Structure formats: structure tokens, C-alpha cells
């Protein structure tokens, strides 16, 4: 029991570091995108009162990567947000590996269910 506790504790510390790094990385990318976006579009008039879906080049993962490489501020912000969404997914993936190392197969299965739902959400692209 105490060996399991100790392992759990160590795993959680690693997970904590992973989460912090992911969030800081995502925030840095969003900030970079913000600078490009504000320099180019800071003088325009924003309009969010009427909802119309964001264009395809800001909703599909490949298009966002493409736009970010082309230094589009909005695409870089979306890339940062994708990194942010991916951070908890990485955490769940890491937990699955950790449970497997502990040979706790019931929890490997439970974790893979959560991972499956997250990956479906992250890569599903119909809309």
C-alpha cells in the first residue's frame, strides 16, 4: 500500500510539472500571436455581437498549422489554444503509461476510455 502511495505521489508531481509546462508554452504562443494580431488589426472595429462560425482556416488543425507558419496572428493564437487543449490530453496519456508500469490494468482501461473521448474531440473535424 505504501509503495503504491509513494508511486502515486511521484507520478502526480511529474504530472504537475507537465501541466505547468504545457500551460506556459501555450500562453507564450498565444501572446506571440496576440502581438502579431494587435499590430496588424488593432485599429479595426471588433464585432462579436452576431455569431457566425469562424472561417475554416481557423478551425481545422492542419489549416491552423499552415496559417501559423505563414505568420497569421489569429492562426498563431489558435495554435496556442490547441496546445492548451492538448495539455490535459498529454496528462491523461501519461497517467495511462504510469498505470501500466504499476500493472494496474483496470485503471489502464479506465484511462484509455478518457483518452479516447479526448482524442475524438481533438481530432474530430466534421462541423
Amino acid at each position: 500500500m505504501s509503495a503504491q502511495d509513494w508511486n502515486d505521489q511521484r507520478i502526480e508531481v511529474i504530472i504537475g510539472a507537465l501541466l505547468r509546462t504545457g500551460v506556459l508554452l501555450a500562453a507564450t504562443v498565444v501572446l506571440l500571436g496576440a502581438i502579431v494580431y494587435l499590430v496588424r488589426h488593432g485599429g479595426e472595429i471588433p464585432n462579436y455581437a452576431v455569431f457566425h462560425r469562424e472561417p475554416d482556416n481557423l478551425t481545422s488543425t492542419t489549416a491552423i498549422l499552415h496559417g501559423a507558419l505563414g505568420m497569421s496572428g489569429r492562426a498563431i493564437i489558435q495554435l496556442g489554444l490547441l496546445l492548451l487543449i492538448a495539455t490535459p490530453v498529454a496528462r491523461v496519456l501519461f497517467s495511462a503509461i504510469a498505470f501500466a508500469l504499476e500493472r494496474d490494468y483496470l485503471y489502464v482501461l479506465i484511462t484509455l476510455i478518457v483518452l479516447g473521448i479526448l482524442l475524438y474531440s481533438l481530432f474530430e473535424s466534421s462541423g
Partner: protein
Amino acid sequence: MNVLEFSALIGLGSLLAGFLGALTGLGGGVVVVPMLALLFHVDIRYAIGASLVSVIATSSGAAAAYVREGYSNIRIGMFLETATTAGALAGVGIALYVSSNAIAIVFGAVLLCSAYLSSRHWVDGAHVPSSKLAERLRLNGAYPGPNGKESYNVTGVPAGYGLMFVAGALSGLLGIGSGAVKVLAMDRAMKIPFKVSTTTSNFMIGVTAAASAGLYLHRGYIAPGLAMPVMLGVLAGSLLGARVLVRARVKVLRYLFAAVIVVLGFEMIYKGIAGRI
């Protein structure tokens, strides 16, 4: 108002929301959507997308600090996340088909419930016998108490699981963390000690929000120009709030923040019924 001024104002408002949310433990997410919808006249669907993103940022940012203390229980968290993430997908499914006004009314009701739940004083119940299901799922655990390790048992697993599905659905539908419902499920239904409930709940919030945020992003609900100041503002505010938390006297602030939430709740319901969201 141009984009620069708009971003600065929203960034400041989000900073304040994140700061007060962390300081009072009520979470910043619940006030971000009403702030954007009522104050800045942003369509509620854009507001929900931006708020979800900020919820992931604060949950993941704070989790790093919590895990070191050793209160959170990753088995309880992971098991219940199967319910919250499935609920989140259901919540997004509902959000795609109901009107903005209906969303606003549900949002208002949830705000009033959160304010009520936060005003109650939680006391850890007596030691409960473990249920068979909790034992098979290895949910029972221990946490560092004043006199060394204190072990606890878990019960009421089906009821807690059901409540977690609801918490996930509300998170996906409204773009909030649903921390209050998660703590309710763990603390009241499953009799998990309060400190373990709150830290484990915080851990789960990011995963739950990630389940719906991906769907929203691919469906064009997340506008980068709006999500950017909200995410950066709430994140900075919550990190700042966590720093001063140790020194501040938060009781008065808690009541004040709860009062603000009540006012916003009534206004959301009113605007929703009047069809002006």
C-alpha cells in the same frame, strides 16, 4: 472602440475575474460568460468558447501547485473523468441545438446554485464504511492530516458518477468548470473529505473542459481575437490570486463575489426570458 481597446478592456475584466475566482475558490469561469454577454454584448456562443479555454488554463496552472501537497486522488479523478468527459460531449451536443436564450436561462440558474452552494459551510462527515464498488475500483485513499496520514473510505459511487455526468454536461453546455457540482458529487454523495474533493475536482476540470473545447474549436465557436485576452487575463489573474491567497482575509470578499454572482444570475435569467441575449 477598436480591437486594441476592446482586447485591453476584456483582458482587464478577465484578470479581475481570474483573481477573484482564485481568491474565493469559486473559479473565474462562472463570471467570464456573463461579463462578456451582458457587459460587452458578445454573442453567448463566442463567450462560451472563450471561457472554456480559460478554464483549461486555470485548472492546469493550479493543479501543479496542488499535487505537491498530496491531497488529490488520481484514481478517483480518472474514474470520474469517464463520466465528466462523456457528459461534456453530451453538453456540446445540446448546445448546438438549443437557442442562446435557453442557454442563458440555464446559465443563470447554475449561477444561483453555485452562489448558494458556496455560502454553505462544509463539514467533513464521520468515517464511513467503504462500499464494495469503491473497493473494487480502489478509490479509498489517504491524505496528509495534522497527525500523519489519515485514510478515508468512499461510498455512494453510482450517485456520484451520475452527478459527475451532469457536471460534465453543464461544463460543455455553458463553458464553465462546474467545480461546485463536482465538489457536491464527491463531498456529499461519495463522502470524500473536503480537501481531497476540492483538489481532485480542480484536477478534473481541465480534462473535462478539454473534451468540449476541441469540439467547439472545430465548429468555429472559438474566436481567437476574443479568446486571447480572456485566456491570458484569467490565467494571469488566477496565478496572482493563488499567490496572495495565503495572506488575504477572504471571508468578506467571498460574500461580495457570491453577491455579484447572484446579481449576474438573475440578469442572465431575465435577459434569457426577455429574449435579449
